[in-house]
């Protein structure tokens, strides 16, 4: 413990703090280095007191089926969950906004995960990490003493993760319910219909899309109103010409709908971050209902 260097950012339970850790920590630019005594650190880290499952992903977001599975296992085993989002290329320069987007996406995804865990009464924390997967697992297993096993999200090679792990490592794969075949990672995202993976996009990109779709909409309007007589002549002919107004409004709804959506996003008016949480809360409530225990029991009849 005395050799700990670097940092881990714990974001669980709505507050963040910094801890020192072993090995070569990749220091992100948000880091404030400070040295803490091991006893203090353990006092802060509630996960150190109880056995836990370490879930590791190399993405900024975990897919809902993976979250559900982990929470379900933790619930059955009465364990806590520590989700670790690992930034595997922290020094790769991608215009400067990459780290902020990564952190923002993690915070959103972590909040959704926390809500799922809370619905099942499972304690949960998540950390943002950087470096090689094997090193991160090794580091966390030393700091958080009672890691029972490690679960790997899709996209991580189990050989790499297991090479430095002191505890068993399992990987999660999504399989097709009908064929039983493994679904590739990029397709696994489509499993939960109706809920798109959380995406963090910048206001700058919304601004440019607003300009693009706004121009497209303006061209559409100009085309219709500058040729109003010609258009009205054919659009009101009826019969098969009925398809003309319908097709026109479909084209308009695409261009103008995208424009208006990006317009509000560019102004910073977007859906609440808790929007998806409200829905998961409703779904989880149902799963809380206990199934009747129909197992046969021994009876001692006098």
């Amino acid at each position, binding site marked *: 413990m005395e050799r700990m260097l670097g940092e881990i950012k714990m974001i669980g339970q709505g507050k963040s703090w910094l801890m020192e850790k072993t090995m070569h920590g990749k220091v992100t630019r948000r880091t404030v280095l400070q040295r803490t005594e091991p006893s203090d650190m353990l006092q802060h880290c509630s996960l150190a007191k109880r056995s836990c499952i370490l879930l590791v992903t190399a993405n900024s977001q975990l897919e809902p089926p993976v979250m559900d599975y982990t929470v379900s296992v933790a619930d059955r085993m009465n364990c806590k969950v520590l989700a670790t989002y690992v930034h595997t290329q922290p020094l790769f320069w991608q215009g400067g906004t990459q780290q902020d987007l990564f952190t923002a996406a993690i915070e959103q995804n972590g909040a959704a995960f926390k809500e799922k865990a809370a619905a099942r009464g499972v304690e949960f924390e998540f950390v943002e990490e950087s470096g090689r997967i094997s090193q991160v697992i090794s580091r966390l297993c030393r700091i958080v003493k009672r890691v029972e096993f490690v679960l790997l999200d899709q996209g991580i090679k189990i050989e790499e993760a297991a090479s430095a792990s002191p505890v068993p490592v399992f990987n999660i794969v999504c399989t097709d319910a009908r064929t039983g075949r493994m679904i590739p990672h990029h397709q696994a995202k489509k499993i939960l219909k109706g809920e798109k993976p959380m995406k963090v996009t910048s206001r700058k990109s919304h601004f440019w899309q607003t300009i693009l779709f706004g121009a497209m909409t303006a061209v559409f309007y100009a085309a219709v109103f500058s040729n109003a007589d010609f258009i009205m002549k054919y659009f009101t002919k*009826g019969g098969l010409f009925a398809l003309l107004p319908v097709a026109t*409004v479909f084209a308009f709804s695409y261009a*103008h709908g995208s424009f*208006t959506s990006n317009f509000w996003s560019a102004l910073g008016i977007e859906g609440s971050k808790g*929007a998806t949480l409200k829905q998961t809360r*409703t779904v989880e409530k149902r799963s809380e209902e206990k199934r009747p225990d129909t197992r046969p029991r021994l009876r001692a009849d006098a």
Partner: protein
Amino acid sequence: MHGPIAETIQFIDLNFASIVFLIIVGFVGGLVSGFIGSGGAFVLTPAMMSMGVPGTVAVASNMCHKFPKALVGSIKRYRYGQVDIKLGLIMGVFAEIGVQVGIMVQKNILDRWGEAGSNLYVSVCFVSVLVIVGSFVLRDALKLRKAGGDGWVKPRLAARLQQIELWPMMTFKRANLRISVWFILPVALATGMLAATIAVGGFIGVPGLMYIIGATSIIASATELVVAFVMGLGGTLIWAFYGMVDIRLTLLILGGSLFGVQLGAIGTTYVKDYMIKYVMATIMLIVAVSRFLAIPRYLNQLEVTSFTAGSVRLMSQMSFYIMCFALLTGAFIILFNMFKARSEENALIMARAEA
């Protein structure tokens, strides 16, 4: 033009004031539709008619703007995980049948009692449905508000109906319910019939989805947009077949309403569940008052009553303004609560970041 109807239609010339008016009414209507699933379109038909647009063209153009608006709104709300597409499509198909039944009923009334009788039937439907359903929804919303508005309890009727295993049973994952199609059918038919009668099927569709089928108000209002899309598309094809759609009017309303519908959909993510019921009930009850004031005119035409011409004119004008007031009140409540909740959320995030 196709058929004898379209040949007699005169399409109006548009000026700057009417363009601005249509865009603003479209925006407010879209805002309400995006939030409560429907209900924004009922002002548009009388508003267009007040500009001199013939009644059939006003209805057709309104219908033609409704389905792309519902499409954009439902896509937006689908992204928030609020739409049950399967439930919406099934309801939409049955509602389409309801629309046809509603049109037949209307036609029979028109043949028997003439235009005044038909208008009276529409107004009586308006007032009775809106008062009964609106007061029930308002009572429920106020009860939820009093309780803090956090919990959602499945209505007793819906819970009982879901327990009845009557073939064919269907499971709706997003709405998180399993119910027999036989209970969806009457709700959808009534939605379609009301849409054919007063142009806003959602005043039955959304409460039906909430209290009979058992969806939450957020899911119900979002799924109603899919129903509105299916009904609107079907209706538009029929009206366009007769050459009744004025595409210029449609595009102008659409210009404002797509801004509104996006904002309304965003608003649903900030407010508590009861707020949708609250807004819906408020609009329904104010519109009921508005339509009540329109009844004496038709009663006079049928020679049942004998109000003076001046008082009938005054009541008709008041009816229109109260309808506009209903829409504006709904829009105000939505915007106020949305921005209030948004600023509270931002303040919380800031406080967490500082801590």
